[in-house]
């Protein structure tokens, strides 16, 4: 079953002198349970594509349907709500809330969703244990290593029970050991719980683990390979 259906997607930035086609007619389907890496040189449109799939940016033309919802039919307010309930985000720079502990960073998103308190506590513990941070639940981000912070970010993305997780260069700031560790965790979550991951990356280690690799160049898909 397709989680994401993208048809004839275009994104044009109107500069002062020239028009830039960041995404130039992309057609793409992502199925549930995929572990997909989008690769390509800088400026190829990876991040733009992911921003549009994540409902953070709107296309110039074409459509994105996420789990039967056409994102172009949603207004800004509905989009925010849609993101909260359907999409998990992992950012390159972790972007945790520094004043909250690991536990609070994870449970916060469930509170925004309005989940019951006891359920929040239980799920928070389970998720943090699943990313190997069961013993660091009460640590603040500045007490954690980069790899640990990114694992909290993955846990946070998972907490909302999203349809898929978008990870924009998740390993760019990590050393190789942390990268290995993070990828193992994400792969396991994907395998065991059938969670769909879409990465944008330069990192060959991520590409190696991915089961589908999409190569973007100048806003077009030039290669789409399933392993």
């Amino acid at each position, binding site marked *: 079953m397709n989680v994401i259906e993208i048809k004839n997607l275009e994104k044009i930035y109107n500069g002062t002198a020239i028009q830039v086609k960041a995404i130039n007619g992309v057609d793409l389907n992502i199925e549930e349970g995929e572990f997909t890496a989008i690769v390509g040189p800088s400026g190829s449109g990876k991040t733009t594509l992911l921003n549009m799939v994540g409902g953070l940016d709107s296309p110039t033309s074409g459509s994105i349907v996420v789990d039967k919802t056409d994102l172009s039919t949603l207004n800004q307010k509905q989009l925010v709500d849609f993101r909260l309930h359907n*999409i998990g985000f992992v950012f390159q720079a972790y972007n945790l809330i520094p004043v909250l502990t690991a536990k*609070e960073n994870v449970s916060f998103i469930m509170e925004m969703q309005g989940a019951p308190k006891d359920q929040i506590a239980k799920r928070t513990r389970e998720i943090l244990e699943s990313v190997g941070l069961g013993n660091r639940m009460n640590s603040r981000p500045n007490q954690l290593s980069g790899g640990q912070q990114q694992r909290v970010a993955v846990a946070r993305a998972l907490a909302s029970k999203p349809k898929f997780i978008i990870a924009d260069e998740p390993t760019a700031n990590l050393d190789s050991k942390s990268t290995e560790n993070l990828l193992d965790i994400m792969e396991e979550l994907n395998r065991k719980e059938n969670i769909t991951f879409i990465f944008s990356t330069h990192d060959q280690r991520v590409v190696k683990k991915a089961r589908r690799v999409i190569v973007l160049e100048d806003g077009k898909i030039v290669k789409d390979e399933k392993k």
Partner: protein
Amino acid sequence: MIWSIAWKNVWRNRKRSLVVIGAVTLGTIAGVFTAGMMKGWVNQRIESIVYTEISHVKIHQPEYLLNNEINYTIPNIDQIDRYVENQPNIIGYSKRLKLMAMAQTSGGNTALMLQGIQLNEEKNVCRVHQQLVENGGTFFDTNMSNPIVISDKTAEQLRIKNYKIEPETLDSLKILGVPDKIIRKLKTIENERFITEKLFKKAITSTLSKKGIKKYGSLIVETSKHYRLNSKIILTFNDIDGELIYQTYKVCGIFKTANTMFDQMTAYVLRDDLSAITGFGRTDFHEIAMIVNEETDPGQIRNEMREKFSGLSIMSWKDISPEAAMMTSFMDIWYLVIMGIILLALAFGIINTMLMAILERVKELGMLMAIGMNKKRVFRMIMLETIFLTMVGAVIGMVLGGILIAVTKHTGINFSSVGEGLEAMGWSAMVYPDIDFDFFLLVTAMVIVTGILSSITPARKALKLNPVEAIRTE
């Protein structure tokens, strides 16, 4: 959780927050204390109006009020006596014979409104008997014939008060901590008598250094002050037939209230002494003054009495002194204005701090909006943070301001350096600040409103952020 994040955000940049909190604290202390001082002053002024100058309800024969014509005494005193006896709410009741008189001594003369009082009655209505100056005699606790109690101001005008440095004065000053050097200098004017404060001050100014005057001047003046009790005063007034008569009175007490104007005009004599010479009868009175208990509205007693005694002028203190009555309600608005101005000034600092805080957290706010925090929540988070920031300072300020008021309520604050001007207007130079608990609730509400209003600009700034761009910010 939003509450918790907002609270924790306050302490992210501890130093910056503490600066704002400090400013809010100081502002709140200033506001609370100023309000407390003004309230204390107003309370004292009203207490003085009621318990010294006017009383709660006053009765006159209407024509008497036109020109203080002494023939217009209050009729049917017996009926009023009976009515008051059956009114448990009236706790003080004094009937007075009032005459305009000219007072004269060898040193000076002045016009006075003589209050012919009955001692037991008067003590329940008027607190002048508690306001005698130090070494100022007694309130008719004497066997002398024709005693009179005059004010400190009148004593000065009649030259009954003088200033003299006697050997005992120097001993007292020594005990009070005045250095030997100054005592030695004061010895040069020992036993010299000065008939006014101005002359005495001039003398010590030429003797002592500026620093010495500043530090010990008022103490020396107070200690050197002497009243010539038992001095004779000749009073001239009209008797019941309109004949001009003279009588000699002896000063038995000196009082000083917070109102110089009242002091300047008022002198007390015993009613029986006055009636004996003027020919007024046992039931002749020009004025009745009454005090009611705390639970009773003087206006209500006035209305009841007006119905019962239709031919008389019956007025409450608010009728007689409407400006004082207005002062209480006006003050409530004034406190708000003071607090409002302080908070408005603080609001700019708070807005600035919050704008800085938003600027520092652009990336984080972008992330929050990206993962699904809606505008309402973002606004609420920033608003709560601003309210917390303001509230912490305000609560500390209110507690410290409250403590300051509680302490000074007992010790009082002395404004005697500008006291003369204040007292001339009827305001005490010694103020005992006071505050209602309601005021703190009001300040709390105002602080919350300030927090909400100050959060609008920073919150709008945050809401304008585009999550995609904000996340990319370094």
